């Protein structure tokens, strides 16, 4: 298991905003990562820095052991599909596919054509005349058929209907199984991809909140409800992220190491226990109240704990 990407104290400041604030992590070869976070959290900036499309203010980046800037050896092994990608105005769909075929060493033309059929892309149509959904589909075809050892998908599904999105997930999974590679899926449709991703990177306001095995996270966050006294007692075994009160009843979202025993404990305290989905967890960790993340301090503390 070797690290494909290593990032240390990466910071990106624009004139007035800090888009990334001392972010450190590494990506292991042949895993599917979910890069999660709200809009404007810094996900796209992070990927732009990793692909040398933008410049860091400070910090270290290593991709395939080297800095990616102007580094042909590194760049030729990366595919970065972004929602905001623009195309020269004269190009038709077939031209874009041909261009991608020229550039990516691992390009599979036969697979690209098959995918273009699956997503019903009109080869003769000018790219500027494509609908938002078709434009996304074109990006998906390029991203999958490039078979790059490091592939970034930045919100690749805008304008795609549920059926096409499911097609994307199915083809991604099938092709990944056959041709393992490192894939970073940046998204806020967490529910849709939660079963696909092996690792979670959660960014909020430029800071890395979570860097954790998705399976370890599942079941780590629970919601208990019942009498306040019981909830208070239960919460002591973890970190409380959120709480609502209704008379003498409380509902609290708690993060901790909860196994089957916790279920029994909740029951004996007369509490209902509900495990949180990945989506719930992310929402709880990144919801802001008064400009502060719910339990921002404890979330950082937890990050250390999960390492």
């Amino acid at each position, binding site marked *: 298991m070797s690290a494909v990407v290593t990032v240390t104290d990466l910071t990106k400041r624009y004139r007035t905003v800090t888009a990334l604030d001392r972010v450190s992590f590494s990506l292991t070869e042949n*895993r599917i990562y979910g890069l999660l976070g709200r809009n404007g959290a810094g996900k796209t900036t992070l990927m732009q820095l990793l692909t040398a499309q933008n410049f860091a203010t400070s910090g270290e980046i290593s991709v395939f052991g080297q800095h990616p800037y102007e580094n042909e050896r590194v760049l030729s092994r990366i595919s970065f599909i972004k929602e905001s990608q623009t195309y020269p105005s004269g190009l038709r769909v077939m031209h874009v596919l041909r261009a991608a075929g020229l550039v990516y060493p691992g390009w599979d033309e036969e697979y690209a054509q098959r995918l273009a059929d699956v997503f019903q892309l009109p080869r003769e149509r000018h790219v500027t005349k494509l609908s938002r959904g078709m434009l996304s589909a074109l990006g998906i075809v390029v991203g999958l058929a490039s078979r790059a050892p490091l592939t970034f998908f930045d919100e690749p599904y805008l304008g795609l209907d549920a059926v096409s999105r499911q097609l994307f997930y199915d083809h991604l999974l*099938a092709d990944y199984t056959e041709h393992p590679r490192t894939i970073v899926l940046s998204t806020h449709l967490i529910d849709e991809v939660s079963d696909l991703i092996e690792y979670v990177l959660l960014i909020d306001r430029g800071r890395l909140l979570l860097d954790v095995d998705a399976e370890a996270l599942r079941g780590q966050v629970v919601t208990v409800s019942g009498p306040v006294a019981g909830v208070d007692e239960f919460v002591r075994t973890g970190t409380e992220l959120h709480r609502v009160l209704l008379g003498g009843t409380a509902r609290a979202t708690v993060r901790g190491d909860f196994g089957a025993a916790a279920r029994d404990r909740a029951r004996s305290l007369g509490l209902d226990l509900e495990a949180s989905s990945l989506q719930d967890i992310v929402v709880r960790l990144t919801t802001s109240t008064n400009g502060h993340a719910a339990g921002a301090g404890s979330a950082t503390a937890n990050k250390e704990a999960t390492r």
Partner: protein
Amino acid sequence: MEDGRPIFLQIAELLENSILDGTLAEEGQVPSTNELAAFHRINPATAAKGVNKLVDDGTLYKKRGIGMFVTPGARAKLRGRRRDEFARQYVRPLLTEARKLGIGPTELKNMIDTWEEDQ
């Protein structure tokens, strides 16, 4: 897959259920990790983790180069384990709830008998 619980545990359970109800016979071959991943639309590494859990506890065994198979005797072992879990998972909450409602053990037994007859 169901939310909020590690998927590999759910995969392991699904395979166990198939062994318990006979869908997967002893000495029979288990679907490959990739087949499981594609069918359930999950990450192959997660599917592998679920399968490996069953290999570790002896429910499945590996034939090198061929695949995973159900260990002879696995079904009986699983049933024993599930019976223990049954008490913890179902009987205990049943008693807790009954106590909350003032239903004594005798009354509870009668209720079970009545339901059994109705079915």
